[in-house]
Structures are given as C-alpha cells and as structure tokens.
C-alpha cells in the first residue's frame, strides 16, 4: 500500500520532470543531446550492482550462525540508497537464503554480513573498519576514492558519467572470496597488491 503510494508519487514526479525536460528542449535544442535526468540515478545503479556482484563472487562455506540467517547486504554509515536497495533485493534469494538489506553503524556488525557497502561518510574510520573485517569473508564495496588500494575489494568509479568499478583481487582472495573472471572482464581496472617479497 505504502509502496504503491510511493511509486505513484515517483511516477508523477517523473512526469513533471519529463515535462520540464521537454520545455527545456524546446528552448535549448542543444541541451537535449544528453538528457541525464531520464537515466536511473547513481545510487540506483550502484544498488543494482551490489546485487549483481553477488552472482559473480563465491563465498567459502559460512559459519553456522551466518549460514542459517538471511544473506545480508549491509550498508555501513549513512544510507545513500534509500528504499531502492530494499526494492531490488526483495523477493530475491541466493543458495536458498533470502536477500536482505541491513543498515549498520558499527564495523563489528559487518561480520554477520556477506556484503558491506561502506558509505563515504565512514571514510575517516576506513582503516579501523578494514582491520575489523580483515580475513573475514565479507565482500567490501565502497565509492570512497582509492578504496581498492586501501584494502577494499570493489570500488565504484566513474567512467565519464557511467558508473563502473575497480576490483582488487588480492584483497578478495585474502578474505577467501573467489571473484569470477566475468566480473573482472567488465571491471575498469583489476588490481593486485604487490607481494612484499616481490
């Protein structure tokens, strides 16, 4: 019921927006070449990608506590997704467990998650967070700059106006995760930490 209302307001908002775009188009034909607003929003795309990553990553056998619970995708810090993430994950399942979105504030809570999105608001605590999650089989994703070089696994970047991502395979392997080559194929960059001895 609530969702219906939401979607209907969203739809009317879109209509108004389209009308505006149309008017702008009439006034400035050159501006219509790229109608950015008609595309899905940045975090809509990122939410979808979060869900898609699951299908290209393999987790090792999880401890019983984690295994029996739902497959949790957590957002650490401020939630940039809003209801979008929930709507994407609702009704979806993987390996018999249903997918849920969780909002957490403490890094320790992320240990019960399979995927954790670290919001940019947590950039100052990034080192602590990654220390907590070290060796834990949790896929870390963030749009914090240089995230993949600072110990994260997947970092959202922009390629022009398109949302793309970089993958640090070494960090994923250290956590016992296997990233599919298909995912690496579409990554803008695949990074590996240089070995200490090399």
């Amino acid at each position: 019921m609530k969702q219906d209302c939401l979607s209907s307001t969203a739809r009317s908002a879109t209509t108004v927006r389209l009308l505006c775009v149309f008017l702008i188009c009439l006034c400035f034909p050159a501006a219509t070449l790229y109608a950015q607003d008609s595309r899905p929003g940045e975090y809509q795309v990122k939410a979808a990608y979060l869900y898609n990553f699951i299908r290209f990553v393999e987790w090792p056998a999880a401890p019983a506590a984690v295994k029996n619970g739902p497959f949790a995708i957590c957002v650490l810090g401020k939630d940039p997704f809003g209801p979008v993430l929930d709507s994407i994950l609702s009704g979806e399942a993987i390996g018999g467990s249903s997918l849920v979105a969780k909002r957490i504030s403490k890094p320790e809570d992320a240990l019960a998650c399979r995927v954790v999105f670290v919001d940019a608001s947590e950039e100052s605590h990034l080192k602590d967070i990654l220390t907590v999650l070290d060796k834990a089989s949790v896929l870390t994703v963030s749009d914090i700059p240089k995230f993949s070089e600072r110990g994260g696994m997947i970092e959202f970047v922009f390629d022009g106006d398109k949302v793309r991502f970089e993958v640090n395979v070494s960090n994923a392997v250290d956590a016992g995760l296997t990233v599919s080559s298909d995912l690496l194929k579409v990554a803008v960059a695949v990074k590996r930490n240089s070995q200490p001895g090399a």
Partner: protein
Amino acid sequence: MSTSRSKSIAKKLTRMNMVVCVVALLLACTGFVTYDFSSFRQVIVRNLSIQAQVAGSNSVSALTFDDPSAAERTLSSFRLAPSIVSACIYTADGKPFAIYRRDGNAPIPTEPRTLAGREETYWYEHGNVLLLHTIVFEGKRAGFVFIESDLRAMTARVKSYIAIAVGVLAFSLVVALLLSHFVRRSIAEPVIRLAEVSRQVSREKNFSLRAAPGKEEGELATLVETFNEMLGRIEERDRDLQSARDNLEKRVNERTAELAAANKELESFSYSVSHDLRAPLRSIDGFSLALAEDYADKLDESANNYLQRIRAATQRMGVLIDDLLNLSRVTRSEMQRQRVDLSGMARTVASELVKNDGKRQVEWVIQEGVEGFGDARLLRIVMDNLLGNAWKYTSKHPAARIEFGYERSNGNSFYFVRDDGAGFDPAYSERLFGAFQRLHGMTDFPGTGVGLATVQRIIHRHGGRVWAKAAVEKGATLFFTL
C-alpha cells in the same frame, strides 16, 4: 560391314557398362550429397548454437554491468569465423547492446524475433542461416544473442564434392572400361565367334562347320552346344534328303527302263501282229480275187455278191493294218528336228488331194511363210491327216473352203487347219483323238479312226499340244503347237 555388325554387341556391352556405371554413381553421389547437405546444415546450425551460447555466457557480466564495450570485445572474436556475417547482443528487453559486423554495413534486426517460448530458434534468410539464442543467467533471461552466418562452408563443401564426384566418375569410367574388356572377352567374343560361324555356314552352305566351344559356362556354353547340335541335325537331315533323292532317282530310272521295255515290247508286238496279219489277209485277198476272176461265171449272183463283200472287207482290213503299222512306226522312228516349210507342205498335200478328185469345188487358203521346227517326215503325216480330214469332211458340201495358217492370241501361238464341212458335236471332242474312235458313220465318211490318234502322237512327241473346236455342220478347226 560384317565386322561392324559383329562388333556391335561388344560396343553395346561396353556402352551398357558405362551407362550403368555413370547412372549408379550419379545416383549414389546425389543421395550422398543430399544426405550430407541436410546433415551438414544441422552441423552448421549446431556450431552456430554453440558459438551463440559461448558468446552469450561471455556477455552475461557485460550485460549485468551494462558494459557494451566488453560485449563487443567478446563478439569481435567472431573475426576468426569468417562465415559469420553479423552478430548482435540484445538486452533482456530487446534493445541492441553490442554489434559485430563482418563487412561493416550488414543490417542488424532492431528487435529480436519472437522465440515463442523457446530458448533458441534459427531460420534461413537470403541464403544465410540466422540464429537467435536466449542468454540465461541464474535462471533469468539476461539478454539475447543473434548470429547470422552465410553458408560459404557449405559452398566450399559442394565444390569439393563436385571435384570428388568428377574424379570418382572418371576413375570409375576407366575401371568400367577395363571391366567391360573382360566382359567382352567372356560374353561378346563367344557370341561374335558364333555369329561368324553362322555367317560362314549360310554363305558356304557348309553344314559340317562347328563353332569351337570356349571356356565359357552357362547359357553361352549351351548356346554354342545347341548351335553345333542344330548344325549336326541339319547335316544329318541333308544327308538323309540326299540319299532319299538318290534313291528316288534310281527308282525313277528303274521305272523308266521298265516302262520303256514294256513300251518297246508292246510296239514290237503290235508291229509283228499287224505284219503277221498281212500274210493270211494277202492269201484271202489273192484267192478271193482268183475266185472272182476264174469262177465268176460259175457262181451265181448272190455268191459273187458275197465274194465282193469279202474282198471289200479284206481291203479295209489291209488299210487298217497299214494305219496300225504307221501308228507304231510313228512312235518308234527316230526324230530329226529341223526347220520345215509348212506352207509348202500344205500346198503339196492340197495339190495331191485335188489330183485324186478334181471335180470338187474347194477353195484353199494357205498362209504364206508358215514354218515349223520338227521332223519333216512326221509333220508331213500330220499335214496329210489334218488336210485329208478337212477334204474328207467337206466332201458332202458342194463348195468348200479349207484354211491353213498360224495365229497368235493372248500370248499363245498355234497352227490351225479350218474347214467348213460336217464338223462334229463338241461334246465328243475328247474322244476325237482316241485310236479307232470315230464320230461319223462309216457309210458317211470312210476311215479307220487312227488318223487323229497318229496326229496326236506325233504332236506329243514334238512336245506340242493338239485340240479341236467344232459344231455340227458348221465345220471344224484343229489347232496344234510344236
């Protein structure tokens, strides 16, 4: 000509071998190629399907993370498959996502064809095969792969097939030619040999010839055997026929000799009879004459009358015996055939007849220059008899006309003697030529009935024919040929 005819069976056999070989090969090639095409098409489609599956599964991540360049990289691997004209990856809602074109400008369907619930479908368009494959990832439709491939692999295969077929055909023809050479030796040659022998047999009429039996078996051996057997039977029959003919000839000769002997016996018998009959007749005639001369006054009238009758009968019997002698002489005498002037002969006979009885009014019409080929003495007897008869049977008419001539009608030619005398009833014309057969009474016309029998015998000895036409009191015509 005979060789070309005898060679024709060998030629026919060779031609038959060739035709059978070519037809069988063509049929086999057609069947093989047809089968291979249908199976090869399936192979092409299967390969295309595999390529679509590979391309599709390699494009899943690109589709998921909206990375067309990654999908295009995947599709660009089709450069290694030159038969693929174009390929396209569509998003799950049917929008083109990544495109590959071999020639750079091939048209791409803007919307994937409906799959009607199937995961994959293919169809043919302007000689190309097109395939649409659904990309399924984790049980969901992630997009579509479309591939269009030309059939150049098939064309290349067709070309190689044609080359192979032509090669095989040429090789088979050579083999068939060699084989037909052997077939000729085993079939045609015995037949040709047989034909040669049969031709020789019919040309030389030599049934003692035999076809040489060869190494062949079965029908050909039977043919040769039967042919020889047939020749043997013909030869045997020929021999039988010859011996029968010889036998027949011998028997004919025997019969002829027997007949000739009998004939001769009969003739000499009749001659001696007539000859021996003369002696008593002469004494009857002599003594009756002496009786008439010496004792005429001592005998009464009735005795003299009897005596006269005895004398007349004796003289008639003398004429009869003369005629019989003549008849037998006619049969026995040797013939000397030569050209005879029948007109002259007729004139002589006529003048002799006229000399004997000059008081009669008879008109002689004798055709000039009539000639015959025969024995002059015998022909004179014929003319004597025929003209004499004409003279005799016209004696009751005050004026008569006697003709002799030569006539041609309907391709036949014959001599004739015509008179306008007493004639005879044509119903008795068959009896006319019998010895001692007479159609008239002795008192009307004297005669012995031997004359025409003699004529017929002479004419028959000349190989001719004699016949008569007559009517009572309308005269008679006697015809003869020589």
